[in-house]
């Protein structure tokens, strides 16, 4: 049965829910103790599909480039891994702590296979933007239909 990209969305949602359960096992990021129910792990991401390109965006303020790692495994798994270290001034007293620190790992299962050699990742002003290109094997191939020769 042919699936259009619209129908792919609800299917992927279920996959994402399963992924969310897995992410919770690895969620080591300490916040103020409360857990937000709306997202499956840290960092929260926004993903969009634009033809043959997948755009993934995450907000990671205060993270240094050296403390961030991005992996593409098995062609359709994207992993974001990093550590946010606090920059506490010397001899200081902490009066308010709202921001979180520590290590995080988050894996996303992508809706199609991507080419790991064609990943573009940019990190500016605390915003990580990743562009992933669809793998050749996952691209749609037009099939020529042979019909009866007209008499």
């Amino acid at each position: 049965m042919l699936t259009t990209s619209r129908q792919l969305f609800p299917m992927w949602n279920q996959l994402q829910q399963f992924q969310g359960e897995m992410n919770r096992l690895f969620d080591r990021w300490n916040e103020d103790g409360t857990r937000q129910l709306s997202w499956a792990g840290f960092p929260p991401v926004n993903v969009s599909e634009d033809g043959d390109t997948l755009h993934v965006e995450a907000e990671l303020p205060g993270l240094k480039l050296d403390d961030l790692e991005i992996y593409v495994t098995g062609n359709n798994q994207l992993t974001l891994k990093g550590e946010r270290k606090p920059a506490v001034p010397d001899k200081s007293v902490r009066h308010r702590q709202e921001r979180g620190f520590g290590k995080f790992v988050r894996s996303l299962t992508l809706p199609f296979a991507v080419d790991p050699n064609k990943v573009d990742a940019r990190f500016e002003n605390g915003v990580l933007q990743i562009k992933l290109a669809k793998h050749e094997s996952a691209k749609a191939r037009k099939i020529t239909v042979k019909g009866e020769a007209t008499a």
Partner: protein
Amino acid sequence: MAENALKTTNGNQAHGETTRGGHFFTPRVDIYETDEELTLVADVPGVTAEDVDLRFERGELILQGRVKPRQRPGLALLSEYEEGDFYRVFQIHESIDSTRIGAECKNGELIVHLPKAEAAKPRQVQVRAN
């Protein structure tokens, strides 16, 4: 002392109007105190130094960060967070020298330095033996 120096007004509500509508987000903030100053660090991803509007008026420190809308091309598959401008207000006590407030913004983090007024700095008192 710092607890009195920095009290937030109801940060979730924005005072006044801005020319651009939309949600305002309250940035998460850490506050540290040393002998010299109070340091305020806010998470403002997507904000550059030019987009920060930091004002001190009538005893209030108003923090506003403008986020340039980032295009999200194509069909959205997963939307776990929204973008929007940041806004937060703090009440500043007189023990802060408001003329020397400084700030820098890097990597989506805004660091505001609030130096203590001379009179408020802790001073070691010499005790003489006789």
